[in-house]
């Protein structure tokens, strides 16, 4: 197994607000890794910094090559992308346009596209409807599909279950499980702690901008601190 993503000493500062402080995260090839943490912990900032969407200090390596300071669009072309928090589909564009927008080489993407159509019937059924007309769960599936159109090796996903009813969350995680079985590596930020710990191989927990705990998903699931902070506080 080789290391796909290696983040060391990452810090993000928003003009005085220290959102992320000296955090280190690793994702091995084929792994699903969870990043937990309460609201405002710095999870989204971490993902956005890795993708080069915001300024950060520290070292980010992807496939042993430094991507610190590299422009987001170059990083994406190297096989790393993000499904942003809140999905961020383009509401006025159709589903087809949303997907193809992400396909840098339309021909090369054809097989990926057809596989997605087979996996997610909604892509074909509602292909020409504006993405803004989809329900939240459908939007999340389309957002993940759109990210796959850049043919990533590692997918960062920010709160896939945000605002979704439990059955829709099941649907999203079924899709993620399929993708994982196909060998896609992922780093998932999630507040549905039990759900993601049942899915992931390893996990990190973040609080106030720093990583406070890490280990196998089972270790975190059984940890008293996680139970106390997340599971207790969830209800």
């Amino acid at each position, binding site marked *: 197994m080789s290391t796909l993503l290696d983040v060391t000493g990452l810090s993000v500062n928003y003009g005085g607000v220290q959102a992320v402080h000296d955090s280190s995260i690793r994702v091995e090839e084929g792994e699903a890794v969870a990043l937990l943490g309460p609201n405002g912990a710095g999870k989204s900032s971490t993902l956005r910094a890795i*993708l080069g*969407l915001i300024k950060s200090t520290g070292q980010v390596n992807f496939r042993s090559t430094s991507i610190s300071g590299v*422009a*987001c*669009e170059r990083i*994406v*072309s190297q096989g790393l*992308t*993000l499904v*942003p928090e*809140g*999905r*961020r*589909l*383009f*509401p*006025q*564009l159709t589903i087809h*346009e949303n997907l*193809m*927008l*992400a*396909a*840098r080489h*339309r021909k090369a993407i054809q097989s990926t596209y057809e596989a997605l159509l087979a996996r997610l019937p909604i892509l074909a059924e509602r292909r020409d409807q504006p993405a*803004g007309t989809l329900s939240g769960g459908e*939007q999340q599936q389309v957002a993940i599909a*759109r*990210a796959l159109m*850049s043919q990533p090796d590692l997918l960062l996903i920010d709160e896939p279950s945000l605002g979704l009813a439990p059955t829709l969350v099941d649907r999203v995680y079924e899709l993620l499980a399929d993708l994982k079985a196909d060998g896609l590596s992922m780093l998932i930020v999630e507040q549905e702690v039990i759900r993601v710990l049942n899915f992931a191989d390893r996990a990190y927990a973040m609080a106030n901008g720093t990583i406070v705990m890490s280990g196998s998903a089972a270790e975190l699931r059984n940890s008293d601190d996680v139970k106390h902070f997340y599971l207790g506080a969830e209800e």
Partner: protein
Amino acid sequence: MDAILTYIVNVVSLGGTYALLALGLAVVFSVLGLINFAHGELMTLAGYALLAGILLGVPFWAAVLAAVLVGGVAAVIMETTAFRPVRNANPATLLMTSFAVAMLLQVIFQNFISARGQAVPVPSLFTGSIAIGNAQVSIIQAISIVVSLLSLIALKVFFDRSRSGWAIRAAADDFETLRLMGFRASRLIAIAFLISGLLAGIAGVLWVMQRGSVDPLMGLKPVLAAFVVVVIGGLGSISGAVLGGYLLAAIEIALQTWLPEGLAPYRDSLTFVLVIAVLSLFPNGLFGKRVAEKV
């Protein structure tokens, strides 16, 4: 009946030009959040390029083509030299920059060409008119209508079919997510300016052919109108810019045709009163997007 036909021809030809200009403004607004006040000077520049081509004796069609291209290239140069350095500054800075560019170009035209209008000798082929029933339609108007409609169709295909077209439509909503889709901001902005400049070039040529002359301040009035159109249509709405263009022309020409002689001096003010009325009923413009859709 003839009066109605004349009215429609006037509206469709003026409206087409407004739509082209407004689309040029909307495309740039979409990617940069800037109303480019120097857009009119691109028109003027295309007008001078047409004149230069004719005076140099190149075939008229080649002069027209060159003039349109000058509009496009000048827009890209404007973007890289003037707007790129202040791209991430606040909107007021961008707006001031566009005013400065407009002024600078006007002064250059005045000092290096002439403050007075220059006659543009349009081939006589284009100066006649054709009779439809009892109504007279000038050939230039007919050309205006055809050219503007063809340009709008071409743009529609671009916005519906091409990846860059989708990206420009999406940019107004969310530039950051476009970067996740692999778009380079600089490239997209350059494409938007190129399109905007080509549209200004086409509008400039049509405008000059109708008036038969070009002067340093030529772009001012039509671009002010296009600015109004973009606001009525809904900032950032591309179809709004087109429909708004025809709507403004309909209002303007109705007032021109049917307003009693005595009220003629108030024509422009009345147009603006109507515009304000529209905006107070539809604060986001007639075709502005529903903000609630943001996900």
